[in-house]
C-alpha cells in the first residue's frame, strides 16, 4: 500500500528532453495507467519511478517520504518487465525466491558455497520456501516450481514474473507493457487476472501500455502522455466523454473520433461551403468539431441537400468507400461530400441502422445524421471548449 507523488519530474538525455514537468498523484490502492504512443516517455517515467533511471529534475515521494535518491531495492517496489526478465539459469522457485534471499540474508550467507552451510541461510530457508509456495498457489503455478523459464509458455512466464513481484509484498506494483508479448486471446485472459489481482490485493498499481483498451478497461484513472508530457489524467469515462484536447480525443476511442474543421460565421457553422444549420456562441471563427463514430447515424437515400430534421439532427450527404462487417456492428469508411479530404468513420449497430442494409450495400452515396448534442467543440489550437452547438432553424435559434 503506498501513495506515489511525482513533482515536476523532468528528464533529458543530453540535449534531448524526454520528459517535461510531470506531476502526478497516485492514491493508495489505485490502478493508474500510463498510456501513449511509442516514444511518449511512459516507459522512461516508469523506470524513473522504479529508480532504474534518475530524473534530471523533480522529486519522487512514496507515502510522503522522498525516495528520489534511493536505489530501487530501497523503495519497496516490484516491477514486471515487458519480456519478464526471468533468470534463465534458475528454476521458477529460485526466481521467485531471489528478492527474499536478497533482503533476508546478509552478504556472506549469499556467497556461492557458503550459502549451503551458513546458519543464517538455513534459518531463513523454510520461511522463504513457504512464502514462495503460497504465492505460487495463488497464481496457479505451483506445479511449475521446479521448471526453468525456458521450458514455460509465454503465459506461464508472465505468471512467474508476477509471482516474483508479489512475493516481496511491495507497496507499489509497476508493470511495463506486460501483455504485449502475448497473443490476443491470452491477453484478454491475463488482463482479467491482473484486474482481479488488483482487486484482491489492494496494492497500488502503475501500469504502462500503448493499448488504450487495456488502459480503459483496467484502470481507476488513466494518464495520457504525448511527447514527454501528461495531456490529461482522469477516469476512463472522463477521458472518453470530456477530453481536454483534440489529441486526447483522438487517442482514446476506437475507431478514432472524427474531427472536422468548421468556420463560425454570423449565421452559423459552415463545413467548407456547406451550411450546417448549427450555431456556436463563440468569437473565434476557426473551430474544430469532434464527433465519435457511434454518434453518426446512417439515413437512407442519396444526394439530398443538408437539412435539419425534426428530431434535431443535421443530415449531410456521404460518400462511402468501404464497409467492415464486424458481426454485431458495421464500420463504414467514407467522407462527407462537403469535405472530401477528411476520412470519416461511422459505427452502425446492426439492430438499429441495419434496416437500411440494401442502401448501404448498393449505394455509394448515403445520408448521415449528426446529432449536435453529441458534438465536442475544439478551438483551432485543439483545446476543448465547453460550448454547446445549437440548432438553427429558419434563422431562429432553437435549443435542444
Amino acid at each position, binding site marked *: 500500500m503506498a501513495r506515489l507523488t511525482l513533482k515536476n519530474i523532468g528528464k533529458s538525455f543530453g540535449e534531448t528532453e524526454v520528459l517535461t514537468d510531470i506531476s502526478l498523484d497516485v492514491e493508495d490502492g489505485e490502478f493508474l495507467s500510463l498510456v501513449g504512443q511509442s516514444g511518449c516517455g511512459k516507459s522512461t517515467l516508469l523506470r524513473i519511478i522504479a529508480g532504474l533511471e534518475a530524473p534530471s529534475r523533480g522529486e519522487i515521494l512514496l507515502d510522503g517520504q522522498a525516495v528520489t535518491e534511493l*536505489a530501487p531495492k530501497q523503495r519497496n517496489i516490484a516491477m514486471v*518487465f515487458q519480456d519478464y*526478465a526471468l533468470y534463465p539459469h534458475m528454476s521458477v522457485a529460485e526466481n521467485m525466491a531471489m*528478492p527474499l534471499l536478497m533482503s533476508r540474508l546478509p*552478504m556472506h550467507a*549469499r556467497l556461492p558455497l557458503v550459502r549451503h552451510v551458513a546458519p543464517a541461510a538455513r534459518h531463513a530457508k523454510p520461511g522463504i520456501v513457504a512464502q514462495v509456495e503460497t504465492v505460487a498457489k495463488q497464481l496457479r503455478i505451483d506445479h511449475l516450481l521446479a521448471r*526453468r523459464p525456458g521450458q514455460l509458455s509465454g503465459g506461464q512466464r508472465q505468471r512467474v514474473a508476477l509471482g516474483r513481484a508479489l512475493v516481496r509484498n511491495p507497496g507499489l506494483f509497476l508493470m511495463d507493457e506486460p501483455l504485449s508479448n502475448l497473443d490476443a486471446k491470452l491477453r484478454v485472459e491475463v488482463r482479467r487476472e491482473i484486474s482481479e489481482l488488483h482487486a484482491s490485493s489492494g496494492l497500488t498499481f502503475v501500469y504502462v501500455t500503448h493499448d488504450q483498451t487495456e488502459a480503459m478497461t483496467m484502470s481507476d484513472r488513466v494518464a495520457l502522455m504525448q511527447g514527454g508530457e501528461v495531456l490529461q489524467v482522469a477516469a476512463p469515462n472522463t477521458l472518453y466523454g470530456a477530453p481536454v484536447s483534440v489529441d486526447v480525443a483522438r487517442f482514446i476511442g476506437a475507431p478514432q473520433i472524427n474531427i472536422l474543421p468548421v468556420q463560425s460565421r454570423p449565421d452559423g457553422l459552415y463545413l467548407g461551403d456547406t451550411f450546417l444549420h448549427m450555431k456556436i456562441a463563440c468569437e473565434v471563427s476557426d473551430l474544430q468539431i469532434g464527433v465519435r463514430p457511434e454518434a453518426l447515424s446512417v439515413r437512407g437515400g442519396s444526394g439530398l441537400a443538408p437539412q435539419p430534421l425534426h428530431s434535431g439532427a443535421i443530415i449531410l450527404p456521404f460518400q462511402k468507400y468501404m464497409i467492415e462487417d464486424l458481426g454485431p456492428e458495421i464500420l463504414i469508411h467514407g467522407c462527407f461530400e462537403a469535405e472530401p479530404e477528411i476520412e470519416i468513420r461511422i459505427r452502425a449497430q446492426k439492430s438499429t441502422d441495419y434496416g437500411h442494409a440494401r442502401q448501404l450495400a448498393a449505394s455509394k452515396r448515403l445520408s448521415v445524421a449528426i446529432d449536435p448534442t453529441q458534438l465536442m467543440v475544439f478551438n483551432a489550437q485543439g483545446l476543448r471548449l465547453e460550448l454547446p452547438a445549437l440548432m438553427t432553424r429558419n434563422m431562429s435559434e432553437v435549443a435542444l
Partner: protein
Amino acid sequence: MSLITKKRAQARLAYMLVLPAVLLIFGIYVLPIITVFGISFTDYSLVSNYFEFIGLGNYRQMLTDEAFGNALRNTLIYAGLFLPSSFFISLFLAIAIQERKQFRSILEVLYFLPVTSTLAAMALVWAALMDSNQGVINLWAGAIGLGPFNWLGSETMVLLSMALISLWSVIGFNMVLFLAGLTAIPANLYEAAAIDGADHPVDKFFRVTWPMLGPTSMFVAVTSSITAFKLFDTVAILTQGGPNRSSEVFLYLTFLEGFEYFNMGYSAALSLVFLGIIFLFALVQALFVDRNVQY
C-alpha cells in the same frame, strides 16, 4: 520432376559438392591417423627402411622414460601457471571494459594486438626484455629494488617466464570472447536483479554474470587448455627445452623424438597420447555444455 528423382538429383549434387573435401579429409586426417596408430606399434625410423612391430613397446617405454615424465610434469606445471591466470585475468578485464563502454574500442585493439602478432618473432623481443643482465624488465625491477631475475636461464623460473609470455599473447583473445559473452547478457536481467535487491557487484556477478557466461566460460577454458598443451614456438626459439630440459614440454619432446632423433615410432606413440589428452578436454566441454546450457 517426380519427388524421387528430385531427391536423387539433390543427393547427386551433394556428393559432387563434398567430393573434394571428402578426398582431402581422407588423405589428410583419416589415413594419417590410421598410419600414426600403426607406426606407434613399430620402431620405425625414417633413416632405415627396416623396421619391426614391437607391439606396445613404445608405450611401455613411456612409463620408464625419464624424458617423458619430465615433459609431462613440465607441461602440467606450465598449464597450472597459465590456465587460471589466463582465465580469470581476461574475465575481469572483460568485465572492467564492459563498464567503460567509451574505452572499449581502443582497449580491445590494444589487448588484441599480441594475439595477431607472430609469436616466434615476439619471443625474440621477450628474450631481450627478459635478458638477465641487460633486459629492460630487470632494469626496471632493479629500480624498485627487486631482482635481478634469471627469467630464461634459471631452471626454476623458465616455466614461469614461458607462462608469462603465453599469457601476454593470449589474454586479448580470451578477453574478446568474454566481452562478446557479456554483451549478450540482456540488460534488464541486471535491472530485475537490482529491483530484487542484488545491486552489489558481488551479488550481480554470482547471480547474473557468472551463470549467464556459462557456455562462453567453458569454451574459453577448453581452448585455453588445448593451447596450453600445444606450447611449442617459444620453447623452440628461446630455450630449446633448456636449461637442462626444464622447459622441455610435451609437444617439444614429441617434435624432438620425431624430427631430430628420428624415433618415429616413439614419437607417434607420444602424439597419440597428446591426442588423447586433447580429446578428453573436448569431451568435457561437450558433456558439460549440454547439461548446463538451457536457454
